[in-house]
């Protein structure tokens, strides 16, 4: 069948491109711009290259990867394992709560970090609910953190404790001792996992926590979970077992580099700046106005503001709009563009234009629901061709 031959041929082209001693990035981008093949772990190599997590010289790969993975291990030690050991040796007692009048700065930041951790925890538990993957156990748990003999405070215990300690605190302050039952709320979530196991979402939680500690300016903002989700899923499903084992560390670096490019969307104080979310939303609308003024006018006159749909589309790089395989396919193409987030602007415009008939004839409510629940009947490949058409017309 032609289809199979074609994808075989594409695979060969990819293998050739990735096999050369110095990767020709232009050539690779071109290949990726029609989607990356699903076989041989090609995608995870391409994504690492496109996100600048691997050097162009093949011979430097082992060294570069080794360095990154060691670096991540250091972060893990410094930010989770060592504080966890300290906590397990700390005497529980009065200074064990945030209202201690003489907290050391160390305690202060510990409690501040707990707030961030709790928010991450709420969100990663809700990650990609359509698939079971994130609830499943990883084959590569972080041993020192999950070992049943270790008394170290891992993130799981830390979340549990901070929920409990705020309950205890309430009890103390109200002076009512039977008010609250110290129900171990968090523990029921792990019932399905055997001892010594870790769910994939816990790995994601750890990466996000480390990212937040290293980037106090942004820390953690809801939606970052939706950016890291497809990255981690892809790297942790690598058929290349040697790389799959290091999915956690490598995802951290891919995520950090990707965030470096889209971070401004997550920062409230930059909303109005040239690189903030408002500017990006306006760029979509400007493009729409140029390409399809009638649809633009219609949305405008219905008072359907970009904040109601484009905000999420752009902030999450469309990850909540499509199924995971479709998101990954779209990201292949986004990552392959050297001005990648320009292409995102074109994709968003294309998505709107492809709904033009409905937008022009239906009312506010209908169109709001339409844009917030992008219809399945429109194939991602249709969207991508339309986006490319717009994008190329624009550049010529």
């Amino acid at each position, binding site marked *: 069948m032609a289809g199979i031959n074609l994808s075989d041929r594409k695979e060969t082209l990819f293998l050739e491109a990735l096999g050369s001693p110095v990767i020709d990035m232009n050539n690779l981008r071109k290949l990726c711009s029609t989607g990356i093949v699903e076989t041989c772990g090609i995608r995870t190599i391409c994504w690492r290259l496109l996100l600048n997590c691997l050097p162009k010289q093949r011979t430097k790969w082992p060294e570069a990867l080794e360095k990154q993975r060691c670096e991540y291990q250091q972060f893990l030690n410094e930010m989770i394992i060592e504080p966890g050991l300290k906590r397990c040796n700390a005497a529980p007692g009065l200074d064990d709560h945030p209202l201690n009048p003489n907290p050391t700065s160390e305690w202060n930041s510990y409690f501040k970090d707990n707030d961030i951790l709790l*928010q991450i925890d*709420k*969100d990663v538990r*809700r*990650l*990609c*609910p*359509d698939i079971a993957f994130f609830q499943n156990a990883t084959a590569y748990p972080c041993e020192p953190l999950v070992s049943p003999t270790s008394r170290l405070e891992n993130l799981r215990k830390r979340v549990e404790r901070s*929920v409990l300690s*705020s*309950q205890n*605190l*309430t009890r103390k*302050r*109200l002076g*009512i001792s039977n*008010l*609250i*039952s110290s129900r171990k*709320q968090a523990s029921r979530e792990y019932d399905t996992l055997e001892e010594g196991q870790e769910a994939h979402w816990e790995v994601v939680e750890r990466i996000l926590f480390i990212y937040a500690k290293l980037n106090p300016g942004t820390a953690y*903002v*809801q*939606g970052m*979970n*939706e950016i890291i989700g497809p990255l981690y899923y892809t790297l942790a499903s690598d058929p290349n077992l040697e790389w799959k084992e290091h999915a956690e560390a490598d995802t951290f670096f891919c995520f950090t580099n990707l965030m470096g490019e889209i971070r401004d969307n*997550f920062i*409230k104080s930059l*909303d109005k700046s040239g690189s903030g*979310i408002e500017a990006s939303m306006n760029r979509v609308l400007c493009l729409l106005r140029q390409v399809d003024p009638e649809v633009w006018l219609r949305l405008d*006159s*219905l*008072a359907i*503001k970009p*904040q*109601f*749909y484009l*905000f*999420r589309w752009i*902030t*999450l790089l469309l990850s*909540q709009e499509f199924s995971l395989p479709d998101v990954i396919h779209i990201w292949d193409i986004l990552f392959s563009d050297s001005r990648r987030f320009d292409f995102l602007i074109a994709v968003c415009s294309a998505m709107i234009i492809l709904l033009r008939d409905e937008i022009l004839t239906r*009312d*506010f*409510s209908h169109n*709001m*629901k339409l844009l*917030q629940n992008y219809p399945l009947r429109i194939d991602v490949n249709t969207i991508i061709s339309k986006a490319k058409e717009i994008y190329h017309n624009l550049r010529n």
Partner: protein
Amino acid sequence: MSLKSKKEPQPQPQRRVFKVIVIGDSDVGKTCLTYRFCSGQFQDKTEATIGVDFRERMVDVDGELIKLQLWDTAGQERFRKSMVPHYYRNYSSFQNLPAWIEECNKYCSSSGGIPRILVGNKSDLKEKSEVDTNTAQRYADSHCMPLFEASAKEDKDFANIEAIFLTLAHKLKCHKPMMSGDYPSMKRATVLSIDKELVRKNSDSYCANC
């Protein structure tokens, strides 16, 4: 029917649209609550809301069919400042209720007292504790809001959830029209949503605030 078209006089009686904004801390169950009301189902698996989600349902209020527009907002701080001015043209958990009320007042004061109700969700998760309900009740009273406890999860609680939104619709129907409204048939209300579990956790700061 579009919002704009409501400005024009129409021969048949206009169908009125009531706008309801659901606010509160992340993870308290705003999405589940509104989804339950609009679809009858418990959405077991939700994603964090980014921005704002729009849902609606027709309700019958004293014989008049009214469209309730529900704006299900994101709980996290980052999205409030960016999104809020847009959906309030017209915003918990318990610890944060004062902040939510303040935000609500900030955007609503000009139109003179938007009806509000307070919902303690996830009532299935707790053995009912007198003190908690009382604390929440006193708080609701002091802000002139009715208090409801509900569970988006329990099927048997569906009627209760309907009652919440119907109460609001009634309040809206009786509410005097807004002075500055460009959409005369549009009425607005706010549901402050909290998680019953968090009522327990954070009632200390509530005490500090009243």
